[in-house]
């Protein structure tokens, strides 16, 4: 395996990353924002690199965001969706990966329904692996774009109070956010019905609110999680109607707090379930900034993972003038 870049070979989650590594990604994402504003939204940094977007679960926005990031860095990309490929014919994850690698790919972006799938893949192939969401485990690039959006809006992350509202139990976005936010010094809380909060969550160092009013009272930022509609079918909540009434983030509830609270949502939204449209489209919503930042963050991650094998870099520095 090639040991490259200060991020290591793979990006599987934020739990085991250092604050410095997270800051490096956020800082690197800044200049990439400008690339997407250029007349020609493309730089040759990853020219000749081959990237496979291996999506075992349907996902439109994450896949498109990665694809834009890859294309704006001039990488060659191939999308593999689970349906219609050999994946659905019972080929195992590891066989799929080894086959792709035999075709000499440089990176795999994987979305999979099983927690740990990205780590599993990363441990078995030499290519860089980027986790685009594994089961209920982590979705690191989503949390990174959330961090970047919070930093843009508030100028800092340290000391901010951020509350994740909703289905934390089944949310990989929530887990990655909890790690990323705590590592950068934010205070983190979760809010939702106890059926949708993982047991032991307090031991991760987060506050728990059972009432959304209390969460709003406390928070500088609300990150409203998507409520998967099948949670109702599986009996975690009695009805969407009641969920909206008890946990919905509404203008009325926000007004009562009487101060500015930044509203985020990883998308896709269920308007009128976890979030009211007037909030989602309101002045304090940064939901579309999140989408914009998603491309920049993913460009940064791809660029950092692809770049700079340390030993070569050192050799290059020794050999050449530093000012060139």
């Amino acid at each position, binding site marked *: 395996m090639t040991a490259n870049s200060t991020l290591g070979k793979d990006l599987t989650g934020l739990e085991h990353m250092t604050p410095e590594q997270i800051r490096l990604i956020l800082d690197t994402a800044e200049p990439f924002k*400008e690339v997407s504003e250029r*007349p020609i939204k493309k730089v040759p940094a990853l020219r000749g690199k081959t990237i496979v977007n291996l999506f075992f679960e349907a996902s439109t926005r994450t896949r498109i965001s990665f694809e834009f990031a890859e294309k704006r860095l001039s990488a060659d990309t191939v999308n593999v969706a689970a349906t219609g490929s050999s994946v659905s014919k019972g080929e195992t994850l590891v066989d799929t990966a080894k086959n792709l690698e035999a075709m000499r790919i440089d990176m795999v972006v994987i979305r999979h329904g099983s927690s740990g799938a990205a780590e599993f893949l990363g441990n078995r192939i030499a290519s860089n692996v980027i986790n685009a969401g594994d089961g209920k485990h982590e979705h690191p690039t989503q949390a990174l774009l959330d961090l970047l959006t919070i930093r843009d809006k508030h100028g800092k992350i340290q000391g901010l109070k951020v509350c994740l509202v909703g289905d934390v139990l089944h949310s990989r976005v929530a887990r990655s956010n909890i790690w990323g936010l705590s590592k950068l010094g934010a205070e983190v809380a979760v809010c939702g019905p106890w059926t949708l909060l993982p047991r032991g969550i307090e031991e991760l160092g987060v506050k728990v609110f059972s009432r959304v009013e209390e969460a709003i009272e406390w928070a500088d930022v609300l990150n409203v999680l998507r409520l998967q509609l099948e949670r109702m079918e599986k009996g975690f909540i009695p009805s969407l109607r009641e969920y909206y009434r008890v946990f919905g983030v509404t203008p009325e509830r926000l007004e009562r707090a009487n101060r500015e609270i930044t509203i985020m949502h990883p998308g896709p939204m269920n308007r009128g379930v976890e979030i009211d449209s007037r909030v989602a489209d309101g002045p304090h919503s940064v939901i579309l900034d999140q989408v914009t930042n998603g491309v920049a963050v993913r460009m940064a991650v791809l660029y950092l993972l692809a*770049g700079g094998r340390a030993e070569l870099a050192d050799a*290059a520095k020794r050999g050449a003038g*530093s000012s*060139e």
Partner: protein
Amino acid sequence: MPRPKAEDRTTLLDARAMSRALQRMAVEITELAGTEDLVLIGIQRRGVELAQRIARLIEQGEGGSARIRCGSLDITLYRDDLETVGPKPVIGETHIPGDLSDTHVVIVDDVLYTGRTVRAALDELADFGRPKRISLCVLVDRGGRELPIQADITGKSVKTSPGDRVDVLVHELDGQDQVDLIQ
């Protein structure tokens, strides 16, 4: 800038010499390109400061009547050696002041060596538009070219060996103006 011990350091330009060189370069640029269509693009990092300084010198030379457009370019993403960039490639700001069509762009950099940085800069500029002419202005030409690229305007030329280093210090970033050769 790393400063290993036991190095042989020679000053190529002190603050006064550097000031004179920049003054002369500013004059040469106006002779070459005029001021009307001129756009100075500094290459990150120290090329940006040098470009701004030259722009001010030109403006003073014209009696404060001209406004020289000045921008910055980070060529990191256009390098042909990503794998050797290092573990922490810092990407600086790229700022192109408006449309480049029908302009005379002068690329400003601190040191010209292999020519690869300039090659990358030319590629990157092409993605921002189509200037009618692009020229190259460098403070120090240390030789050692690997590509067919030459400067139009040079502050100082010096012969160096591959193991040498040229350190350019500018007071905006480094607190002093100086150019050293480290052998």
